[in-house]
């Protein structure tokens, strides 16, 4: 069942404005947090078990703990460059509750003693940009940002940086590069951003949802927050359900809820007459699950991992029996080829190569051994590059091929889709 914590008031238009937000308990937790010891907040976040909601699922508190004891200035960056196909939760959060994010960010900044933060937001999200700009102006006007916030002596400035269309900028070091005015290419690690990030200063990059959740850890306390979710995957999370379901949309559920509930009940189930074929559980980069696997999985990090996939950003893409897997993989490979930043050779060349091979299959020009080639390319892209984009391209290729090999073989042999019975021209127009 849906558990509305973050999204409790998302349906109320008044929640967007500062007044409406304050009426519904907004900024109370900020006042509470500013009275706390920053170290205690970090400890609380650690104890809450909050894990990064952007995709990697790295514990937020642990990340904060990597910051050097001293070292000024330090930056907090909010990763609002939501580009993973299938994900649209951050957009909802920024449009429906901009102040919720701002409050979460001020608390987080206070905890890590940062005096400057940026919200890096993808340029296509014009509504979110407008909504956040308005909210920031309101917050500055109300003294919630700037010097001496709420009389606590804590200073903090927040600004928005608008991206210009690059999926890779969702990677934290690429985002830092982009913010520095370079091309959005990931930087070598080590040094990690917590040590040397934006302009060589310690920097923490967190997802919108992670930062907003901090507010609720302060509000409910560690115990209260851990009430939902499982031992290792605590709290609730927004899931973006899309694809062939009756009611696609964002749904907040406690981690650990079964995928069956999410898809079949909450999202309205399959369209009439259709059968579930496969589910991509965490955005297009994560390995695909077959219908059987999906129906027995729970929506938490561990359960999904036990099926060899990842919870990722929580973008559940549902495929039914009308979807040709070769076609779907072609779309994904085109996407990664388009978005590879071109820095590391295995990714730059590998994504292009994969795209060519998959499209050769679609066009009926492939050889039998090209399936092995896809495996070879993918395996040699995984973990060989600076960032995870090459893994993100390789994982779907590997899993599609492993789980739906018959469709690929049929396509190579017959030159048309096994599911749809048509060739490339009819599918791609």
């Amino acid at each position, binding site marked *: 069942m849906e558990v509305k914590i973050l999204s409790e008031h998302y349906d109320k238009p008044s929640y967007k404005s500062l007044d409406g937000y304050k009426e519904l308990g907004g900024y109370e937790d900020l006042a509470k947090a500013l009275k706390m010891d920053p170290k205690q907040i970090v400890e609380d976040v650690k104890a809450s078990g909050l894990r990064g909601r952007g995709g990697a699922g790295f514990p937020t508190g642990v990340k904060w703990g990597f910051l050097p004891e001293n070292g000024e200035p330090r930056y907090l960056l909010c990763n609002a460059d939501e580009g993973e196909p*299938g994900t649209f939760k951050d957009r909802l959060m920024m449009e429906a509750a901009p102040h919720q994010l701002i409050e979460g960010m001020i608390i987080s900044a206070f905890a890590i003693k940062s005096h400057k933060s940026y919200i890096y937001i993808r340029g296509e999200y014009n*509504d979110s940009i407008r909504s956040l700009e308005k909210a920031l102006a309101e917050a500055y006007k109300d003294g919630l940002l700037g010097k001496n916030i709420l009389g606590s002596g804590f200073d903090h400035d927040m600004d928005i*940086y608008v991206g*210009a269309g*690059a999926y890779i900028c969702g990677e934290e070091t690429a985002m830092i590069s982009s913010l520095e005015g370079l091309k959005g290419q990931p930087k070598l690690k080590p040094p990690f951003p917590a040590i040397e990030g934006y*302009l060589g200063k310690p920097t923490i990059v967190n997802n919108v949802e992670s930062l907003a959740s901090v507010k609720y850890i302060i509000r409910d306390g560690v115990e209260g927050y851990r009430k939902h979710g499982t031992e290792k995957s605590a709290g609730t999370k927004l899931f973006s359900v899309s694809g062939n379901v009756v009611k696609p949309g964002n749904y907040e559920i406690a981690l650990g809820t079964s995928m069956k509930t999410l898809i079949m009940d909450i999202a309205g189930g399959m369209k009439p007459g259709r059968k579930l074929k496969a589910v991509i559980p965490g955005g297009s980069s994560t390995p695909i699950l077959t219908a059987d696997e999906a129906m027995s999985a729970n929506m938490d990090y561990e359960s999904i991992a036990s099926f060899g996939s990842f919870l990722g950003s929580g973008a559940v*893409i549902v495929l039914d029996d009308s979807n040709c897997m070769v076609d779907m993989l072609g779309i994904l490979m085109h996407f990664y080829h388009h978005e590879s930043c071109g820095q590391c050779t295995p990714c730059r060349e590998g994504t292009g190569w994969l795209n060519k091979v998959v499209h050769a299959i679609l066009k009926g020009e492939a050889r039998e051994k090209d399936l092995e080639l896809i495996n070879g390319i993918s395996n040699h892209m995984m973990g060989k590059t600076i960032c995870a984009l090459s893994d993100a391209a390789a994982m779907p290729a590997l899993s599609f091929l492993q789980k739906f090999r018959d469709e690929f073989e049929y396509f190579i042999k017959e030159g048309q889709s096994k599911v749809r019975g048509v060739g490339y021209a009819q599918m*791609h*127009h």
Partner: protein
Amino acid sequence: MFKLSPAGEEFVKKELTRYETKRSAIIPCLFKVQEENKGWVSPEAVTYLSGLMDLPEAWVNEVLNFYTMFNKEPVGKLHVQVCCNISCCMNGARELTKHLKDTFNVKEGEVSADGNVTITRVECLGSCGTAPMMQVNDNYYENLTHESAVKTIKELM
């Protein structure tokens, strides 16, 4: 020769000091140039901007060419971008693009004869739950049908 309006130049000067490094201002300034240069950034505009910002042309050009939201070619008055990623394709985005291209008689990425429309296919725009969708200039239009998409574009013309 392209030149920003006085307000635009003022904007560039402000952006140059807004961030910790001057280089950070490249993206916002390019957006400004694109806005004032009929929706695209010409090579002359890059020369002009790099002179105005006092940064090497190569830096500006690198940023310009890296990001997809900057148009390196002229676009129509309405820049229609249809998301053709996985969720949208499942819901008929490719068919929609074809329908739009046929209706407005324009090839992908090119400006229509009357200079009104450019239709491009783009990657995920974060509107997967309301697929298929399109972005016309700055705004999203979601849950489209062939008819509603055409109607929307015609109304905007």
